[in-house]
């Protein structure tokens, strides 16, 4: 009996591997795991219902959409692009690294929800990054544009994850403290949070370097920007 609920995990893995629509896959996995654990249909429905409505906070970011949509209609993305295009010193790698650092520091202060994919990445960071990437070279082609946007989203994720674990009053640290307290080990939040700091620094360094390499690769793909030495040699 003990192993049977693992069938739910199998449903998820197979469903994702076969690229079915994830929503029914996930719900089916829940039903399978609960059936395998010997729960009745009534209990399963109640469990699904209460689990779902207790997690409603996860959809709140959708409330940003009317304001963001309205601004997009009036050219927000176009303006962000035009403006960054004029700032000479702001290269793609500097923009990404600055955003990464800011995101980490704000999350360390517990401000995880003030930035995000809906709040800042789509309306601000992505168009700015596209404009910065296009400086001094010809316009990005379609798949390069996609790469830049995906890298922006990745930068937001990494900044968030490896900043918030250093914050003492919320989330990860309290979960760790609470878990140990249940098992008879008393710890102060600060004792725990401090040890997430080396990883936070490593994340900044590693992703910062990757941002620079990414920006350089994009720039070198364009025939209009060749290293000065090569150009001189050719003429």
């Amino acid at each position, binding site marked *: 009996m003990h192993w049977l609920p693992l069938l*739910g995990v199998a449903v998820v893995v197979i469903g994702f591997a076969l690229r079915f629509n994830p929503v029914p896959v996930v719900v089916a996995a829940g039903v399978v795991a609960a059936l395998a654990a010997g729960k009745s249909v009534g209990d399963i429905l109640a469990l699904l219902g209460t689990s779902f409505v207790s997690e409603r906070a996860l959809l709140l970011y959708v409330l940003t959409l009317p*304001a963001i949509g309205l601004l997009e209609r009036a050219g927000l993305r176009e303006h962000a692009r035009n403006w960054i295009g004029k700032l000479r010193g702001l290269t793609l790698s500097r923009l990404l690294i600055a955003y990464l650092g800011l995101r980490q520091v704000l999350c360390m202060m517990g401000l995880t929800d003030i930035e995000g994919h809906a709040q800042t990445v789509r309306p601000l960071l992505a168009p700015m990054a596209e404009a910065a990437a296009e400086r001094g070279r010809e316009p990005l082609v379609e798949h390069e544009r996609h790469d830049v946007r995906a890298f922006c989203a990745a930068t937001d994720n990494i900044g968030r994850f490896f900043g918030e674990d250093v914050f003492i009053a919320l989330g990860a640290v309290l979960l760790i403290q609470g878990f140990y307290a249940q098992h008879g080990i008393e710890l102060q939040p600060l004792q725990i949070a401090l040890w997430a700091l080396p990883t936070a620094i490593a994340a900044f360094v590693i992703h910062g370097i990757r941002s620079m390499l990414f920006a350089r690769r994009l720039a070198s793909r364009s025939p209009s920007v060749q290293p000065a030495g090569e150009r001189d040699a050719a003429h």
Partner: protein
Amino acid sequence: MLRIEHAYWLLALFLAGTAWLNLRDRRWWHTAFWAVLAALFACGDLVLAAAKAHHELPAQIAGVGVLALAVLAPRMHRGELRERAEVERESDALRLRHKLFVPAVLIPLVTMAVALFGGYAVLGGAHLFAQRQMTLTGLALACMVALVAALWVTRAKPRAGLIEGRRLLDTLGWAALLPLTLAALGGVFAATGVGSAVADLVRMAIPVQSALACIVAYGIGMVLFTVIMGNAFAAFPVLTAGIGLPLLIHLHGANPAILGALGMVTGYCGTLFTPMAANFNIVPVALLELPNQNDVIRAQWKTGAALLVVNLALMYLLVFRT
């Protein structure tokens, strides 16, 4: 007093408006999907209150609603949603310039103000914001402030707010729902003992006398379980109870504070690899209109893999210090 429930009602209203616009476009599946979701958000508190009083029926009806969403989701297609012509947007952008940033920046600023100072705001002797989930309540308020500011800056009609919001929500489609469904699955897995079964499996596979093997099993276990659940928070209690406490702390004398902190961030590396962490890895794919579901994961997995190695090394070097 402003509570998080007010934000849910506001969201229910927006979802219902989206359903209504889809109904007028005769997009039946979309209409049904957003309408069911709106109902679940509007009645969520009733469901939870009833469940607390051991009254199961509302929760069961909500469960049927979740099943209905699962059936409807695959029938939603992005379809053609009209956006304003680029020439018009470009000319507005030249006219309005930096004014366009003001409402956009108001969202993080107002949220931050509420998060930092909301606890001190008093109106008529009562606190203006409820303690619970104050940052998210602030986010909802910030969205409304930003919407009013955006209407003022762009001189658009209020209707346009709903129409444009709906355009973006339908762009997201079922991906918007995935984080919620996955979190609900986490609840079901926790209630059915999937966690302890996984921890037992890992323990059967390693030589427990080797401290290094235990570290690697703990770290890789955190990553694997996070990849399956889409959430390091779900993995932490399971793996730490199954491997961390009995083997590393009690048998090999590891420092619990360091092990806990590094174990958790090792799990976070797993979050960077998995489509199950939908709000971080799938929602942005839809929001940024990327062609492939795994585009964001592809952009970040190398950072995650490098950090995983760093974390395992840090764990091995730091947790056994006396």
